[in-house]
């Protein structure tokens, strides 16, 4: 049901854009106002969200340790999974952010019965890691490739990406591998939620919606490039107008472009208010971004409460006679 609602909503967005541009002639709204507003919401929303996180205190240094600690000199420390310095922690974070280190550990459990003996078995389960990585990197490459539409002259790295991404030289315009892989990645992420019972059970509409939305963005982009064959040069005039804040809507832009940009705008607006903020959160996670060195370097809790233990004096007052009788030393004789 959650998936269905999300699908309906994405379809509605597509129809609104098609109708808005086709029948209501709102191309200025969909081509200029909506995307500019979306970018503002995106930037301001993310900045405020992250600052909101930052406002909260970090009372304790609580890394989850994933290997041997810094210990005696002859015991080898696992510096990247259990860092004790800032630079080691930096490397841990690089692995986490760029290579999804923790997800790479994933295993899958199964309960079996082998000749009457219960066996709890664990198998490696790197599919989620693989397809998640595939999706995220394809998305990144696609975003960077799009800079051709937002920068003029086109900067040096875009042709490099373009060449690598299209290196198979299939068809004209050339097939981008990232276009294929993002759809494969998204489809896997979507299907595992729909097919595996426990993942379907934990999935909210808020989990299906971004997947379907991004899938819609990818498919509309693929349509424009390989099937609809839109006028790229006219579109660049529009996108350059957006990015240099001198907006205009040239003639000859296909409705499919407005669908694409409406979906992208929705994603940007939705982003700061959703789980997509994991993009920022991964940098701030206190179980990953702090070294395991609280025994070495003091960590200060800004709101450290002023509490004192039940004092030794009170304790001795309570038990003095017994202590003397048992031959335990006391501060004050009875």
């Amino acid at each position, binding site marked *: 049901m959650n998936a269905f609602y999300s699908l309906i909503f994405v379809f509605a967005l597509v129809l609104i854009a098609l109708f808005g541009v086709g029948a209501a002639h709102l191309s200025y709204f969909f081509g200029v106002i909506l995307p500019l507003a979306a970018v503002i919401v995106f930037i301001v929303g993310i900045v405020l969200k992250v600052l909101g996180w*930052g406002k909260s205190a970090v009372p304790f240094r609580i890394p989850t340790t994933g290997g041997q600690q810094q210990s005696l000199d002859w015991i080898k420390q696992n510096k990247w999974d259990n860092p004790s310095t800032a630079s080691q922690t930096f490397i841990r974070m690089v692995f986490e952010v760029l290579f999804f280190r923790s997800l790479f550990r994933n295993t899958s459990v199964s309960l079996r019965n082998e000749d009457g003996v219960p066996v709890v078995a664990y198998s490696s389960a790197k599919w989620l890691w693989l397809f998640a990585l595939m999706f995220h990197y394809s998305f990144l490459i696609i975003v960077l490739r799009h800079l051709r539409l937002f920068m003029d002259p086109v900067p040096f790295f875009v042709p490099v990406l373009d060449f690598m991404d299209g290196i198979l030289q299939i068809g004209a315009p050339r097939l981008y591998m990232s276009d294929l892989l993002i759809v494969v990645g998204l489809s896997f992420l979507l299907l595992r939620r729909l097919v595996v019972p426990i993942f379907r059970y934990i999935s909210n509409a808020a989990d299906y919606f971004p997947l379907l939305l991004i899938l819609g963005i990818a498919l509309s982009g693929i349509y424009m490039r390989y099937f609809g064959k*839109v006028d790229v040069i006219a579109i660049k005039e529009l996108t350059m107008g957006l990015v240099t804040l001198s907006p205009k809507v040239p003639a000859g832009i296909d409705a499919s472009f407005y669908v694409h940009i409406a979906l992208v705008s929705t994603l940007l607006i939705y982003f700061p208010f959703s789980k997509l903020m994991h993009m920022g959160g991964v940098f701030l996670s206190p179980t990953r971004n702090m070294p395991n060195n609280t025994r070495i370097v003091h960590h200060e809790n800004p709101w450290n409460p002023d509490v004192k233990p039940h004092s030794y004096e009170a304790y001795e007052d309570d038990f003095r006679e017994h202590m003397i009788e048992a031959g335990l030393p006391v501060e004050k004789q009875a």
Partner: protein
Amino acid sequence: MQYGGKIVIGLVIFVGLLLLPTVYDLGAGSAGYKQPKLQMPAPPNDKNCVEDTEWMRKNHMQLLNDWRDWVVRDGKTVYVNSHGEEFEISLQNTCMKCHNDKEQFCDKCHETAEVTPYCWDCHLAPKGAK
């Protein structure tokens, strides 16, 4: 704010990257960017391209790709367009007869859209070839 310095640096980098295209374009004088003007064939050749101009703007890459396959693989040498007119399938003899300046025609859009067709890996460009 604890670790506020790092958070602010991170946000500045993030926002900076997002604003980078704007700064770049304004710096490069690309504000008011307009579609490149192409050198179109002089009359009387301006009226009889193999297909309509609008269609060609969007689909020429597909057409050229098909032409290559038809000629090289299938030995087909004649193209019949949507108006029933016949053209020889040849980049050199048909297209470049009118569009005879690569730099002033092909490259204009290909550069701004960062497209690198591999036509000229084999074909000789009329003018403006590197």
